[in-house]
């Protein structure tokens, strides 16, 4: 219970100060993100463009994201199997599980799953790594060697991310389908042939293409945001922790917004209905 005016005043002051600090921090982050978008495209077309660094980052993102995405895909397959098996049995529509599960997995579920897990696993790694480079003066050291850190650090990570997330999406699609098939068989005794024989009925090539375009967009933005959170942060360990949290929060929101906008565009352009 707040029983003195002084105590009430102190709490009011702390809350106001904390609100102002939070607003200030978020405005710095927003400016950082905007700056990195501009700098990224400026330096993308300047030499030197080191392919080897892009390959290194591609391999690194693939390896870092692989296990997380495999586990996520297996669990998601189990989830779809349970839901599809239970309601399919309840309403006698078990024969439709194959095509609907496949369509759902490729059109939406794995994009969301891979985007979120990638933001957690690879995005945060970028933020912490680049943030600790900034903290220990390594970015300044690069600038002093006439090396632009955006070229050396950011561009290879972003390009590597876009390429690796495409592959991870393909892997996730495959694992999710296998997992759904196996667990439908295990839990509801649905024969794999029932699922696989007509699994691709609802799929058109456009469905697959749009899923890869959407994940490439997600990969681009989440890796660039994660780099920005590390690149433009100031301070010590506490601030780096805050920057990492911001990186995840911003990227989750970005994934949802990109999913929403691309979905609206796909529907408005008739792509979604065509795919069906």
């Amino acid at each position: 219970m707040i029983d003195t005016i002084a105590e009430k005043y102190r709490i009011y002051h702390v809350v106001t100060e904390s609100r102002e600090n939070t607003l200030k921090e978020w405005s710095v982050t927003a400016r950082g993100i905007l700056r990195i978008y501009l700098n990224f495209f400026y330096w993308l077309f300047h030499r030197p463009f080191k392919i080897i660094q892009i390959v290194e980052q591609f391999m690194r993102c693939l390896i870092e994201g692989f296990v997380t995405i495999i586990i996520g895909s297996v669990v998601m397959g189990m989830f779809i199997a349970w839901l599809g098996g239970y309601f399919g049995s309840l309403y006698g529509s078990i024969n439709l599980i194959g095509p609907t599960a496949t369509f759902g997995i490729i059109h939406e579920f794995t994009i969301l799953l891979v985007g979120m897990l990638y933001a957690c696993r690879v995005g945060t790694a970028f933020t912490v790594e680049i943030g600790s480079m900034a903290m220990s003066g390594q970015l300044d050291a690069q600038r002093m060697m006439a090396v632009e850190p955006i070229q050396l650090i950011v561009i290879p990570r972003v390009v590597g991310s876009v390429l690796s997330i495409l592959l991870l999406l393909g892997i996730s699609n495959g694992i999710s389908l296998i997992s759904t098939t196996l667990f439908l068989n295990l839990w509801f005794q649905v024969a794999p042939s029932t699922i696989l024989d007509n699994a691709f009925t609802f799929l058109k090539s456009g469905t697959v293409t749009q899923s890869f375009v959407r994940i490439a967009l997600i990969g681009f933005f989440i890796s660039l945001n994660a780099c920005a959170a590390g690149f433009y942060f100031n301070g010590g360990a506490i601030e780096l922790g805050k920057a990492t949290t911001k990186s995840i929060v911003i990227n989750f929101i970005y994934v949802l917004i990109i999913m929403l906008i691309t979905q609206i565009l796909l529907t408005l352009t008739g792509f979604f209905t065509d795919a069906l």
Partner: protein
Amino acid sequence: MIRISNVHKSFETNKVLDNISLDIEDADTFVIVGKSGIGKSVLLKCITRLIDADTGIIYIDDEDITAASRNDLLRIRWKIGMVLQEGALFDSMNVFENVAFPLIYHKLAPMNEIRKKVFRFLDLVEMSEFVHSFPAELSGGMKRKVSLARAMIMEPKYLLYDEPTSGLDPESAGIVESLILKLKQELKITSLIVTHDIDLAKYVGEKIALLENGTITTIMTKETAFLPTSVIYKHFISNRERVHKNNENQF
């Protein structure tokens, strides 16, 4: 020559540099001393334009770095080597890769020449035997030495040191001090050192400036800076003695 003219820098309401003007002649070893947190590192970062000064002009060999385009800035920075606080070595690279990095990145020489050059500078700082070690395996003093070799590898005209001995034990600090002097004598480089280590200033400095309240209040030669009557002496040594005495009385 580095010419700093009327440089101001503030962070929000905190005025850090207030009308700094300074000339650093070629082949000089210029030391700026001042308390911790007074803005010494900010001044170095303004000189190299790692951060932008609010107002003022900084010339590096008659080129205004404050107005340089992105490409010109990269070119001007070729002339400047910098030893940052704690060394700022790249964690993912070993000692050889750290020192060779600028040469490899800019493809300045074939690999066998780069190897020779790296070993020449690592020999100079007595770190050749640690060529395969990673920064995490090195002591603070060793990191500074490697950082010094990396700053030297581009053969810069100017070498800037940001607190090169801070946090080092007396022996390691002594080694770094000797190295700065050795490099100066062997390579005739213009050096600018910012430090609060008065022993370092005394050992390597030819001109010593005092940074106080955001501005340069005194510039003295080595001969006059450490006389008991000098402002710098009073600021650092007698102030320290006064604090000791006050504390002794309190205890």
